[in-house]
């Protein structure tokens, strides 16, 4: 709840700053290339899971951005009781809307509402599985490589601030709802690339971006 309260506070203060702003900026379409640093950051805490993600957005209308995001996933878990490996790719397409509107001077900060459709495909396998059982005895087995696909919708809120000219940093909080996935797989994946942990049909993830804007003039 405290996160939501914090985000709400940011949105209210950001919107109020627009009231003071004068509409003296001229709209210039621009392409922005971004890198999601939360993947490498996550790897520091969870070295078994690595994701790399790039994004591309284009302001096709003032305050409206068409967005494409793509990334790769690699999971390598090797423990005494199990080995699990996964390789996958994921894609998202959608739009961002900037709540902040035009700003005075050279500021290009954004408060964004995001909507996305996401798709992920992956191959995963478990070459060694040990399930200990004190009564029946340990169960040893493996799971051969299997393809897994998932589709989802997501919505989110985020910020981007222009740290230096054309260089942005920002974060986005995304809520995701799984629409469909491979039916009755032999094994549920540990992590769906671009979606998150696959424990249930929803996920909430925080992303951090570094992005560079290429102005078209």
């Amino acid at each position: 709840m405290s996160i939501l309260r914090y985000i709400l506070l940011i949105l209210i203060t950001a919107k109020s700053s627009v009231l003071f702003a004068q509409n003296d900026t001229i709209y210039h379409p621009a392409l922005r290339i971004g890198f999601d640093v939360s993947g490498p950051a996550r790897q520091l805490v969870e070295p078994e899971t690595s994701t790399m993600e790039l994004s591309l957005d284009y302001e096709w209308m003032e305050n409206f951005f068409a967005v494409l995001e793509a990334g790769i996933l690699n999971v390598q878990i090797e423990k005494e009781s199990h080995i699990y490996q996964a390789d996958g790719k994921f894609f998202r397409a959608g739009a961002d809307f900037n709540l902040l509107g035009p700003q005075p001077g050279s500021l290009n900060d954004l408060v964004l509402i995001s909507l996305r459709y996401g798709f992920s495909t992956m191959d995963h396998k478990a070459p060694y599985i040990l399930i200990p059982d004190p009564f029946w005895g340990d169960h040893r087995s493996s799971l051969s490589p299997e393809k897994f696909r998932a589709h989802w919708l997501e919505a989110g809120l985020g910020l981007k601030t222009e740290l230096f000219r054309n260089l942005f940093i920002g974060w986005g909080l995304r809520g995701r709802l799984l629409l469909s996935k491979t039916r009755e797989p032999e094994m549920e994946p540990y992590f769906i690339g671009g979606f998150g942990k696959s424990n249930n049909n929803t996920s909430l993830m925080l992303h951090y971006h570094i992005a560079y804007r290429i102005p078209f003039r």
Partner: protein
Amino acid sequence: MQALYCKYRLLTSFLALAALLILIQSCGDDQVCEDITANDLRIGFYTAGEGGVDWTVVDSLKAGTPDRPGQFIYDRIYSVSSLELPLNPSGDISRFVLDFFTTADTLTVSYTREKHLLSVECGFTMFFEINEVSHTTNLIHSISVPVEYVTNNLDEHFKVYITDTDNSEK
């Protein structure tokens, strides 16, 4: 000035959320594997009479399997209202002998197995989908299966109805 203040707020929020992310992720690893890999078949004992279904207590019980004679899951326990029986993760059928001392019943459970990766640290566990249950009828009257998926939830999977000996005598 207003613009600078706005930028300051955005940067502060970025750093605060970065700290929050690290905090949340460091808490996520604090799991107890024994608790979340516990996926035993949970049984409750009941009597079904003219007054409806009542929860009941079995005076004393031994539980084991005919596949492993001499080994017991429970070796003489008293005042039993519920029971947790481990399903065999290496087979599709588990058989249990419930020895009530005055008499005994055999319970045969067939199921489909599904391996499930819980987490990096806890590894895999087996979930089960119950297909069929059969039993002898010495003390057990009947069995209903309100929950057919045996996972790490704390559901009661079987309601075992004990023959109402008081009514039988009437």
